[in-house]
């Protein structure tokens, strides 16, 4: 009885500890199911001599799958990926950083347009962008080539080439580089620049010798992320490269699975090679950035100084317009032209203006197809669920990692960020093999998409949430706790309202990215669970380019609408 006063306290502490471990264990279980298990299946397939299809016996361990990856002429694919990756990234960085710099740090006219130009291509997406550019610049019959031959210009653009693919990759990944660099440029402490100016440096010298070195870490981060995204991009490489026999790593992996007879083990080995390559890239970036002094890049109250562009103002403005034209307006025009033409045959520049030969039949045909309507409904459902449930999961993980002392939270972060290094086409296979074995029917329901997308987009949701959480000082939450509010109540009454704009923008991001997902979906869909990108890809394979153009326009319209509504909602709440 002498321990009676101590016992309840120690039981309470033990209970608290158990609770902590239980919660931590729960999150680990979810992450293992969503990320570790599918990757495990893939790695297993890469070293086994039997495909990991359910029902197949356990295979023997072998390294021959890796040997065949390098022996099958796939070196071309690796080389192509490198060329496209480096060229595309360079272009994306040049465009993205120029737009970010012009928007954040100069007196360019209509700077809001710079922001709009930089963001809008995100809503079109690289898949739709690639489809549109294949209409615009296919050799001989691309719409731009029809105009060029109309004026007897001795030039034939060919988008189905390495340069063409890199160009499309570059312009549609520039928004990511832009977003990455924008905050860094906004946060550069102007005192350093002003000091340089006071010592007689010209504006250009300041930009080159002060501003650029300060944002170099952000630039490096943007470069790595863009390179990873371009190298793993399947849709652009397949739409533009396949007709010309140009194959990149993701396309080679898809073909290994898609052609008869399929080579699942070899595809997995190739996937693991690509995964290791991307992981090495991200690791190298982390090492390079480690120990850098970010002290000058802070968010303390100052307004960044604006560079006077003088006579270059209108040139800068023209650059923004040119980008908007190439990445958004021209592609939308091409999609409109293809969707209004019965056969897409344009024999001369004049034929683009023949209103009489235009038709709405492609629209009525497409909307009459149940497959499309079903796919659109499925996509809307999946994207909404991913935004809500995936978003909630990403929020919980970010909260645990940055706001709690729960055990294993660093490991949680690593696992959550892992899908960044895993190409969709690779993890799609992993999901299929891992989840089709489950006793309950996940495969064949829309939930498999919700889970797969939530896992795939976890790095984006998590990063976006961590940044938002980082902006809210923990003191506010601590005050609520001191005043007696429980953890859940604190999150509900203090944290969430403060984070609302960030949460909404993350949900929008998840919604849009879910709408664009193709490579995973190709492995997971069934007759009753098609999503719109799969339907577009299949129609493209069937040669129904008019239908694809109509669907692209519809998807773009939906996403632009969502973006507009979402943006208004955020600003309304902020007021």
């Amino acid at each position, binding site marked *: 009885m002498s321990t009676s006063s101590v016992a309840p306290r120690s039981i309470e502490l033990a209970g608290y500890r158990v609770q902590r471990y239980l919660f931590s264990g729960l999150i680990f279980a979810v992450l293992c199911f969503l990320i570790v298990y599918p990757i495990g299946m893939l790695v297993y397939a890469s070293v086994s001599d039997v*495909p990991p*299809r*359910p*029902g*197949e016996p356990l295979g023997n361990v072998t390294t021959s799958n890796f040997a065949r990856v390098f022996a*099958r*002429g*796939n070196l*071309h*694919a690796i080389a192509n990926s490198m060329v496209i990756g480096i060229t595309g990234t360079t272009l994306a960085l040049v465009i993205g950083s120029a737009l970010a710099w012009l928007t954040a740090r100069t007196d360019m006219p209509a700077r809001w347009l710079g922001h709009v130009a930089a963001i809008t291509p995100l809503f079109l997406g690289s898949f739709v962008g690639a489809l549109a550019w294949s209409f615009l610049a*296919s*050799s*001989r*019959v691309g719409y731009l080539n029809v105009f060029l031959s109309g004026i007897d210009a001795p030039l034939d653009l060919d988008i189905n080439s390495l340069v063409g693919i890199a160009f499309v990759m570059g312009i549609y990944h520039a928004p990511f580089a832009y977003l990455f660099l924008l905050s860094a440029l906004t946060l550069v402490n102007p005192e350093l620049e002003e000091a340089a100016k006071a010592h007689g440096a010209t504006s250009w010298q300041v930009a080159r010798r002060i501003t650029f070195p300060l944002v170099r870490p952000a630039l490096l981060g943007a470069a790595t992320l863009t390179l990873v995204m371009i190298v793993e991009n399947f849709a652009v490489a397949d739409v533009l490269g*396949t*007709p010309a*026999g140009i*194959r990149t790593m993701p396309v*080679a992996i898809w*073909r*290994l*699975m*898609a*052609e*008869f*007879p*399929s080579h*699942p083990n070899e595809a997995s080995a190739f996937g693991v090679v690509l995964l290791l390559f991307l992981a090495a890239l991200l690791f190298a970036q982390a090492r390079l950035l480690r120990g850098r002094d970010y002290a000058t890049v802070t968010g303390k109250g100052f307004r960044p100084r604006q560079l006077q562009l003088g006579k270059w103002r209108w040139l800068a403005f023209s650059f923004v317009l040119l980008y908007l034209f190439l990445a958004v307006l021209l592609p939308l025009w091409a999609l409109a032209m293809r969707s209004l033409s*019965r*056969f*897409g*045959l344009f*024999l001369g520049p004049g034929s683009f203006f023949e209103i009489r030969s235009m038709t709405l039949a492609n629209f009525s045909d497409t909307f009459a*197809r149940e497959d499309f309507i079903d796919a659109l409904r499925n996509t809307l459902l999946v994207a909404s669920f991913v935004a809500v449930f995936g978003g909630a999961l990403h929020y919980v993980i970010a909260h645990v990692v940055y706001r709690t002392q729960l055990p294993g939270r660093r490991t949680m972060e690593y696992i959550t960020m892992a899908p960044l290094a895993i190409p969709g086409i690779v993890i799609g296979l992993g999901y*299929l*093999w891992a989840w*089709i*074995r489950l006793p309950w*029917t996940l*495969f*064949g329901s829309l939930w498999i998409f919700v889970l797969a997308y939530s896992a795939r987009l976890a790095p984006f949701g998590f990063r976006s949430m961590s940044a938002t959480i980082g902006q809210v000082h923990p003191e506010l939450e601590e005050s609520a706790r001191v005043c007696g509010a429980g953890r859940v109540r604190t999150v509900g009454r203090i944290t969430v309202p403060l984070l609302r704009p960030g949460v909404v923008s993350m949900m929008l991001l998840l919604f849009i990215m879910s709408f664009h997902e193709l490579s995973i979906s190709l492995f997971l869909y*069934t*007759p*009753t669970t098609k999503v719109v990108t799969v339907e577009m890809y*299949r*129609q*493209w*394979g*069937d*040669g*129904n*380019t008019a239908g694809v153009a109509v669907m692209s326009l519809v998807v773009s319209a939906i996403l632009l609408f969502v973006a507009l509504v979402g943006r208004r909602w955020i600003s309304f709440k902020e007021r």
Partner: protein
Amino acid sequence: MSRILRLWATTGLIAATVLTALVFAVAGSAGQQQSGPLVIGGEQIPSAQLYELAKREGELVAYMSYPNAIMREVTKQFTTDTGIKLSLTSLPSDQLSERVLTEWGAKQLKADVLSFSERATMQSFVANGILTPWIVPRFKEIPDKFKNPKGYYYAQAVIVVGISFNKAFVKGGDLPRTWKALLDPKWQGKVGMTTAYTGGLGWTTAMFTRQKFGLDYWKKLAAQKPFLASGVGQVTDALVRGQIHIAINHLGTVRRQSVAGAPLGFYFPREGSPSVIESVGMTSTASHSRAARLFLNWVMSRYGQRVFAKLSSEYTVYPDIVGPGMPKSARAALWYPKLKDYIKLRKQWLDEWGRTFNYTP
């Protein structure tokens, strides 16, 4: 309060009774109307019993490698005729095969009916128990080359490959009327085709040219730098848009496009036309097995083949039924690969094709 509740309960009870009676009445009258065998144009498709059981299943899932645009119309007609909803997934043979194997392994094969242009796949599905036999009513009338001897699969269509052209770019006198004429340097960069790896159609076409004209033909054709696609639709679209001027292509698809107004023409080259058998069979795990049998009966009936031929412009298993625009006389020039060669030569020749055309699968 309790009085109001009682009133609601009574009203609800009456409404439910009336509704139930109505539903039974409607269901009963529908059943009476449609009982008996399905007879179309004097031809009995299924027996009354099979039809009744199939109707109770009410739906059917089909995985097919046949071009989606045409197959959708064919299956729509099936639904109109039988009242059974058919959910269709179309994919190229190779992708479909991987999907079937994965679902089969997980004991979650959703398809009741499978069709492939790739006969080797159908053979392997017979071997590992994925397909189950069903003897259709017209089994004896179907020539041996168009069916599995035990009824595991049947040719729902005979796909013919020939030469097609875009009339906006190729004029009458200029036409390459033979396979060898495609090697004329003036067509360099203007010819399109599917790769040899594209299901049964790609492989049969490659096999035909190799057996007829030798390896040299492949080399000379590769030197023409052809546009290579992994699907019939892509080749046709490139032809319609003028990206290529001549195509080695599925004539049924070309004919449909030309009927719709595209400036396309086609012909059967003098040396013969490779023909591919699109085989259809039912799965051993079909959860709608009666509806699957009904579909096989329907599609292999003379009526079903007429529907297929009309919508697809294909040849059929019955010599007198051919698609519109397809000359009956050309049937004699159709070339069918021997199944043994088709399977035996495949690996080695595909590797050679890949090297010759500098194409890595």
